[in-house]
């Protein structure tokens, strides 16, 4: 029995919506275990979101429509991005509407509005967070595009589904270009999702927070939506990395059994990927903010080297 492509698309939306908190919880649990602390359990993010939805919103007097609008936009755009990245199947109707450049732009929209909302209230922290976020983004985005373009070169397409189906069936060869691109992608994914060594997702210390500083004024369901979108973004970056660099096991049609298998492999890959990220996060200290341009510059260099290596060596 096989599913209609639109049914797969819907399934993918619900999969991401439902599983992103569990994934975030898994990351948090692993991190606690590795650092020798007591872990809160995988389901804690669900409880957090439910608690936040139950709370009242506290709005600043001078908050404009922008501030109230941003959480819904952030949430909506992140969900749309989930329709573009192949999680379990490459047979996605929505994917034809947007390629990988549009995907990066979607994340750009999210960041743009979050930064505006951070400045909207007029507190010092919001402005500081926005300014830092945009500094990082302006350096991370080109590097991210370069890393993805290296995969595009190898698969002759910028459409994600096309890339995935080519890469999933490519014969096994050693590709230095992809190794470089993967290294660059990991560095950028850490920056884009606000993890150590770039940002610390757990801190509310004034001088070090970046993403948290922007959303400091949010409360209630607004905060719930933003947090949920943040978890989805984290999951999506992992999914994007998996789709671009190790898509083996993904389903090409709508066959239910192959979809289930694809879901199983995705879950395993996500768990392993989370472990890698937790080890990186535990092994490194947060970088000084003035060293970040160098860090992101190296990521850009690696991505560019990957692209050059593709032309020279392959």
């Amino acid at each position, binding site marked *: 029995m096989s599913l209609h492509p639109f049914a797969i698309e819907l399934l993918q939306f619900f999969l991401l919506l439902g599983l992103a908190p569990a994934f975030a919880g898994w990351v948090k649990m692993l991190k606690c275990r590795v650092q020798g602390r007591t872990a809160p359990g995988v389901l804690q993010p669900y409880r957090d979101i439910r608690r936040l939805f139950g709370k009242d919103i506290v709005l600043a007097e001078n908050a404009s429509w922008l501030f109230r609008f941003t959480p819904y936009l952030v949430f909506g755009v992140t969900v749309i991005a989930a329709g573009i990245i192949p999680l379990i199947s490459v047979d996605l109707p929505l994917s034809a509407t947007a390629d990988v450049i549009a995907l990066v732009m979607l994340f750009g929209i999210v960041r743009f509005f979050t930064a505006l909302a951070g400045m909207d209230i007029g507190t010092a922290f919001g402005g500081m967070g926005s300014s830092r976020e945009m500094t990082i983004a302006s350096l991370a985005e080109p590097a991210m595009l370069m890393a993805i373009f290296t995969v595009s070169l190898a698969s002759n397409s910028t459409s994600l589904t096309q890339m995935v189906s080519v890469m999933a069936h490519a014969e096994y*060869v050693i590709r230095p270009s992809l190794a470089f691109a993967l290294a660059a992608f990991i560095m950028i994914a850490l920056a884009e999702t606000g993890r150590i060594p770039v940002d610390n997702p757990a801190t509310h210390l004034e001088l070090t927070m970046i993403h948290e500083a922007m959303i400091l004024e949010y409360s209630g369901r607004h905060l719930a939506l933003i947090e949920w979108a943040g978890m989805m973004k984290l999951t999506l970056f992992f999914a994007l990395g998996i789709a671009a660099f190790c898509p083996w096991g993904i389903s090409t049609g709508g066959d239910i059994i192959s979809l289930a298998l694809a879901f199983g492999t995705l879950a395993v890959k996500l768990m392993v990927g989370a472990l890698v990220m937790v080890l990186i996060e535990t092994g490194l200290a947060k970088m000084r903010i003035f060293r970040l341009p160098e860090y992101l510059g190296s990521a850009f*260099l690696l991505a560019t080297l990957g692209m050059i290596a593709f032309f020279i*060596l392959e």
Partner: protein
Amino acid sequence: MTHTLAAQINNLLAALILLSAFALLAQRKILGLVHIFAWQGFFLALSTAVIGFASGEHHLYISSLLTLGMKVILLPYILYSLVRKLKIHRDIEAVVNIPTTMLLGIMLVVFSYHLTAPIRELSNLMTRSTLAVALATVMLGMLMMVTRRHAVTQILGFLAMENGLFFAATSATYGMPMVVELGVALDLLIAAFIFGIFFFHINTTFDSLDVEQMAKLKETD
């Protein structure tokens, strides 16, 4: 089958050599530079051995062992003990800031790719595509010599250039004749002793290994 696999492994090693050349440009600490240089020599030795295996030119094994002994063990050891003796662990000042140097480096890689493109068309060796990497390593070594002020870093740039030349020889013609390679190895060893002596002299005369200090030697006004 083994041929294509060897070519792939060689490509991977070439990519790592290129990466280490960039790492040399990015590294600020002298001991870090020595480590990266040793790694570059290791990749070079490995690549030479792989080419020797795939092409059947067995004298390449000897060059590979020579590289391993000289560039991975002996030269880094000499530099390491020099750095320890002269107490120069501090960060090094670069003339141009590091991200700019990196961008220049990328341009050099593209340039050498274009320069070697005709040779790539003519050659039918399995190593033809790595020639661009070899030339790029030479140029990056040169860039390092130009953009760094410290005498030890300049020597490391010079040695990285030599690595590039050696790699160019193996990838363009499966290595130079044995006599030439032995001669080059001996020269390098002598060079190591000479620059060791020079470091001591520069250090005692100027109290620093910053080559900017040598501008004092100019007889102006």
